[in-house]
């Protein structure tokens, strides 16, 4: 088990990158700020697995919460609404 870079409550910024390979980070959270809810486990790296690799070593994954108003500036439904998404550690940096 590697040392985890983030803990629950940490504010994080999702990297604004568009690698040419398969990745699971939705575009709409890139360059957006959220809060780490929890470390959810070590998971095979889908980015190498999608291209014939083993997905090893497993990477830390976190559940990250975003305010809907952070994701969509025109969001008008309710200011308390949230979005959760699970992201690999290497997509996150400290905000």
């Amino acid at each position, binding site marked *: 088990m590697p040392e985890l870079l983030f803990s629950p409550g940490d504010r994080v910024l999702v990297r604004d990158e568009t690698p040419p390979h398969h990745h699971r980070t939705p575009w709409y959270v890139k360059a957006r700020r959220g809060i780490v809810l929890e470390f959810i486990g070590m998971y095979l790296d889908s980015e190498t697995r999608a291209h014939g690799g083993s997905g090893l070593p497993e990477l830390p994954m976190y559940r990250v919460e975003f305010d809907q108003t952070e994701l969509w500036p025109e969001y008008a*439904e309710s200011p308390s*609404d*949230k979005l959760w998404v699970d992201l690999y550690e290497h997509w996150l940096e400290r905000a």
Partner: protein
Amino acid sequence: MSEGKDRGGFYDTGWQPAGDVHRDEDGRPHDHPGLQEDVVLGVRASRALAMHELLVEKDVIGGHEVDDAIELWSTRVPSNGATLVAKAWSDPEFKARLLEHPKETVVESGFVPEHNADIIVLENTSTVQHMVVCTLCSCYPTALLGPPPDWYKSFSYRSRAVTEPRAVMSEFGLELEEDVEVRVVDSNSELRFLVLPRRPAGTEGWSEERLAALVTRDSMIGVSAPLSPDAVQN
């Protein structure tokens, strides 16, 4: 799968080509009793049949695998999830375990998560409504809810669920107060999410079986509420 069932069971649905010769795994032709000889295959059915036969011939799959897969899929139905929800409504200890150790509890209950996927159960309360989407594709807890409905895979749902979830829920008949927090959960990684909806009022003393009849597939995706007790009276 029962012994003696024809290997071509998948195709025993009335769309056999006239005069077609099927082969066993050892390459020998075999008969298909009960075939309708006069059925003309459509393009897709012909293609599926040809692919199936080639895959068997090339030893990529065994002769039973398509039948076995169909049998497996026939066990993946929304009533699996409804059983768990009704039990959670009735048994606080079970509910606590389902929320705390969802995958273990699902397996103990006799269900087999697809691809051995992890499962997370999200509890709706009077102040929080969870709603599940997979914006990248169609990740879905099929072991508990069966195959996803077409709308779940549609571009429209996958985009609107994250940009205007309340409008989407409203179209499914669910109007939320503004002080209820909506949590849209984008299921794009290795986990599958099941929503544990709120137990409808007026169901005190109901058996798990009666309760399960109120638990709709859509309420376990989080786009709507369970049925009201009135809906299943008598």
